[in-house]
Each structure stands twice: as structure tokens, then as C-alpha cells.
């Protein structure tokens, strides 16, 4: 198996102006390391503002990174300029699918032109373009394609638009795709359709996918591995079944507990909820960033930042009390 993309200690800081002269540093990503393999989906989950979307964009070099390295199939692309990324075909090999099915398609362009644009940019021939566009539309089940190429985005439903988005991402034959909350803005009854489509295309095209979501339940069906992020850092990451069945980090445990399930028995229970709100990323807590909301935090958590350590096979956790939690001597709930 081949590693498609690898992020090494990637940091992304923003300079936020506040007041007359003062400026603060917003640490959107504070040292993230992860890698994605061919035919694999990595889900990144977390609350809004945890840096998961930034992570996706940085990995594609749509945003510059402050420090760290990004390797695409072994090649360091973290310092490349935009022109170089295009000329060396990296832009062909990495794509993104967006959350909003409405603002992600240029309303002035026909579906055919939207899907063809990437090919035009990379200098494909006319005949080739038409053929590729039709094949991509067929792949995302917008059939027959000739019926869709001349339509405008506003003539399509949310689900159909999202499929156009996927088609546009696919035409260049990418090896790495970032899917940024691809189903959060479409109706519940059509979500599964898009997710399953994404999964089957990933398999047939042998891509690596970074699936960004706030909804852990959807991650379960598409991702082989999960990374849980909190305030710009990875709190826990591992194989999906492992993380979901034996979550170790208190944040993961509580996050999983917050997710509602359609069970009528629930109304007699109170869900285990994380107290308070996430702290401002402009002024993150010292030590373990989760200690302010953690029910099992100890003094050490306040001062010392926990390292991401492998506690189970391919299952990493950044928590000082991971071992106690695993042994059951400390209970989060």
C-alpha cells in the first residue's frame, strides 16, 4: 500500500489584529501529523472551530502553512509556489469537495463547463474533455450526461449539485481528495446516497480521502481511520472500529456520548455532556487544551502538554490519563 499524503507537524497560525497595535496569534493548527493511504479514508471529526477545515485546505496547499511538512507521495510540496504546484501536476492529483452545494458552483456556468474547467486549465484536448466530462457525470450517476451538461446549477437539487461537485473533483483523476462536510447541507434522506457514492468512487479510482465532518456517525460508514481534533490538535486517532468501540481520550468519549441515536428510551436518560464551551483559540489553555472541560483532569494536565502515544495497535491518544482510563481505574462518565 502506498502513502498518498503525509502531514508532519503541520502548524497554521493566523495573525489576528486586535486593538490599535496589538495582534494575537490564532493557532488554527498546532502541530498536526497524519497520513492517508491509497484506497483509504481518514475522517477528521471535531467541533466547529477545531481546525478541521483548515487542515483540509492546508493539506491541499490552498492555504499556506506556518511550519511543518506536507509530502504528496513522498514529495515535499509544503513550500511550492502556486505555479509550481500547477506545472508539476500536483493540482491535478489533489482535489476538494465542498460543503455547500449552492455556493460551490458558479451560477453563471453550465454544468458541462463547470466539470470541464479543470481539464481546460490543464490543457486537455477538446475531444478528450468531452469524453472525460461525460464519463465523470456517469460516474456520479448524473445520467444521461447529455441531459445535464447544458443545465445551470440552479436547475439542480442539492444532492445533484453535490454530485456535480464530485464530478468536477474527479475529472482530473486525482489520487487524494478532501471532502469537507460533503453532506451536512443536504437533506437527511439523500445523505447516504452521496456518502456511498463517494466510497464506491474511492474504491474504483483508488484514491486517498480526507473526510472532514462534525458528525461521527457518518464517519463510521466511509472511513477506515478517524482522527478527533480539539483546538487545532489531534486528541485521538486510530482505526475507526477501535476508536468508536474503545475511545480513550475523555473528549472522544464525551463526544461519542453526545451523539443522539433514534432510540425512544433516550428520553428517560440525560446525555453525558461536556461542560462549558470550547475555549477561544486565541487564548488556548496551557498544558492539555482540553483540561478546562475535562472531568478527569489532574494538575499535570494543566501544565504539561500530553504527547500522542500509541496505546493500542494503530490507535494514538494524547492524554496523560489514557492508561488509567484504559484499565478502567478512572471513569469519564
Amino acid at each position, binding site marked *: 500500500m502506498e502513502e498518498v499524503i503525509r502531514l508532519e507537524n503541520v502548524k497554521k497560525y493566523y495573525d489576528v489584529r486586535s486593538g490599535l497595535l496589538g495582534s494575537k496569534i490564532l493557532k488554527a493548527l498546532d502541530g498536526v501529523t497524519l497520513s492517508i493511504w491509497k484506497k483509504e479514508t481518514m475522517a477528521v471529526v471535531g467541533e*466547529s472551530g477545531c481546525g478541521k477545515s483548515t487542515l483540509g485546505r492546508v493539506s491541499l496547499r490552498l492555504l499556506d502553512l506556518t511550519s511543518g511538512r506536507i509530502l504528496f507521495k513522498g514529495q515535499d510540496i509544503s513550500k511550492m509556489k502556486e505555479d509550481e504546484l500547477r506545472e508539476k501536476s500536483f493540482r491535478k492529483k489533489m482535489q476538494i469537495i465542498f460543503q455547500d452545494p449552492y455556493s460551490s458552483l458558479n451560477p453563471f456556468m453550465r454544468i458541462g463547463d463547470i466539470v470541464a474547467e479543470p481539464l481546460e486549465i490543464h490543457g486537455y484536448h477538446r475531444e478528450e474533455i468531452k469524453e472525460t466530462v461525460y464519463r465523470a457525470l456517469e460516474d456520479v450517476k448524473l445520467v444521461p450526461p447529455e441531459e445535464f451538461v447544458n443545465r445551470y446549477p440552479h436547475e439542480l437539487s442539492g444532492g445533484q449539485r453535490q454530485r456535480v461537485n464530485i464530478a468536477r473533483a474527479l475529472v482530473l483523476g486525482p489520487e487524494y481528495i478532501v471532502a469537507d462536510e460533503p453532506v451536512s447541507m443536504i437533506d*437527511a434522506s439523500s445523505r447516504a446516497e452521496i456518502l456511498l457514492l463517494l466510497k464506491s468512487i474511492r474504491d474504483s479510482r483508488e484514491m486517498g480521502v480526507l473526510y472532514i465532518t462534525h458528525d461521527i456517525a457518518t464517519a463510521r460508514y466511509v472511513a477506515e481511520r478517524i482522527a478527533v481534533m480539539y483546538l487545532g490538535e489531534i486528541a485521538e486517532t486510530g482505526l475507526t472500529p477501535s476508536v468508536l468501540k474503545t475511545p480513550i481520550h475523555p473528549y472522544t468519549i464525551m463526544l461519542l456520548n*453526545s451523539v*443522539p441515536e433514534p432510540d425512544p428510551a*433516550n*428520553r428517560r436518560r440525560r*446525555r453525558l*455532556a461536556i461542560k462549558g464551551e470550547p475555549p477561544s483559540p486565541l487564548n488556548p489553555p496551557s498544558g492539555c487544551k482540553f483540561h478546562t472541560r475535562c472531568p478527569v483532569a489532574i494538575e499535570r494536565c494543566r501544565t504539561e502538554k500530553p504527547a500522542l502515544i500509541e496505546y493500542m495497535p494503530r490507535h494514538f491518544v494524547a492524554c496523560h490519563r489514557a492508561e488509567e482510563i484504559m484499565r478502567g481505574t478512572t471513569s469519564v462518565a
Partner: protein
Amino acid sequence: MNEALVVEGLRVYYRTERGAVRAVDDVSFGLARGESLAIVGESGSGKSTLGLTLIRALPTNASIISGHVYIDGEDTLSLNLADFRRRYSWRVIAMVFQGAMNSLNPVLKVGEQIAEPLIYNGGASREEARRRAMEMIELVGLPREFYYRYPHELSGGMRQRIVIAMSLVMNPRILILDEPTSALDVTIQAQIINLVKDLIERFSLSVIFITHDVSLASDIADRIMVMYGGQVVELGSAERVLGEAPKHPYTEKLLASIPRLRGETIPEFIPGRPPDLASPPPGCRFHPRCPYVFDRCMREEPPLFKVGEGHVARCWLHGE
């Protein structure tokens, strides 16, 4: 009489350029005292319009074509608006509107916004009203000093708490919650839902909980009312509708589409899109998307069939 609220044959249409949009089309149900009813449906199912109708807050292009809404036996739709506002609104029936930020006036202190109905509609003195508002703020888990904050100084979760405090300040018996957590993260959502559960118990509220999220509905509701295309397609106890036996194909498919954290099922999807309520399909409104469709569904609109104890479904599969 044990019913806090009874809705009978309610129809609400919107005037649009494309013609009348039948947002609520012949809806009837009852809400018992102390009961929680969840109204579940996708966007465009008419569930929010229904909520706005109950509290008489419809936009100007909507009109109530027919129907009755009885509270304590009085038909509140027959009252003129001013009477309704004086006697029922906020005192008897209150609502947490969708989108907390939009429900709060950006230039007034949140405490004042909570206290105002007490002064202007409850005859309380300013001092009393402030004290009561502060109590309410404490009740929803925020410090009393938040009385003096402005909406923009609060996070989404805090605003939602304020809006809930605001809805309960006049001690209403009936509370409508319209997607109270849809813009919040799951962690904050869990906090708010826990809070709502506490408050329901504490004040013995009769609750109408409007949501698109079946899982959330199951968290609060005694009974579930599923809406599709402006109509009630299934209504029954949570145990029956969400548990062993959903009786309408739409409910069944909706449940099957939910991704779950546990279990082996793989989520399904419903092909097609919701009906255009300006020109709904003939017969059963769900028939173009229904896996069990047969010819009668395309011709005749099914009535609500009784499918069990207090359980009805609008589907020909349950016809004679």
C-alpha cells in the same frame, strides 16, 4: 379534558409567484397536558409553518385557509390577534424560534428582553421583572450578570439558553421548540437538550418539539408526528413509531437513512426529492419516492388509517 392543545383540520397556504404553496394541508392532532410531541420532517414538510401558526406568528404572505386550534377548549384562531397576544401568547403558549441569534434584538441587553413581557404584559414592576429575569437566566445555567450582556457578546449555546429563558419567563403551559439546536455542535446540543428535559419536568410543560432530526426527537418526545409534504403521514407513540414498528414507508426509510454509531446497518437513502407544494403529485404525496408504490397510491390520496393503539399512518398499505 386532558388535552392542552387540539389542532383540527388546519390548512395554511403561502401566496407566491408560482401560486399557492400548501405548506400545511389538513393537519389534525392533540397534545396532552405534560406530554412531549415531536414533529419530524425534512425541510419543506410544513413543520415550521405549523409551529408559527400555533403561536400566530405567520409571515404576511401566509394565510390560514381553514381549521381550529383549541387551547383549553377555546378556538384561538377565532380570536383577533390583539386578544390572542394579550391572553395566550407567551402566557399560555410560548415558543423558542429557530435561530437564536435572530430571535434576539442586537441592541438590547438580553436580560431586558427576557424581562419585558413581565412589565408590559404581566403587570410586574421593573424591579420584580429584573429579579425574575435573573432567576430565569440562572435557571438555564448562566450567571445572573448575563442580564447585562448583549447578544453579540454570547456564544451560540449561551444565546440558545437565553432564548429558552425568555420563552419560559411568563410560566407558559405549552412550549414550542423549533429546531432549538440545529446550529449547534453536538456537544453543546447535548447540553441544551439536557437543559430542556430538566425544564420540561420542572414546569410540567406540554411540549411541541419541531425537528428534522429523528434522533433528537427520540430524545424528548412521548409521541412522534411525522410530516411529509405538508401532511401528517404518521403519528403515534415514540416507542411504536421509532421503535419496533414504523408504519409509513417514509418513516421507515427516514429511520433507515440515519447513520448510527452502533449496530451493523448501513444507511439507506430515499431517491428523488420532496414534492413541490405549489403543485403536489396526485394521490399519495410520497408515491414518486415510495418503494412499495402501487396503482392506487398514484390516483387516490390515502387517509390516516389506524394502525395500532393511538397510532395512525397515511398509507394505502394499511387500507382494507
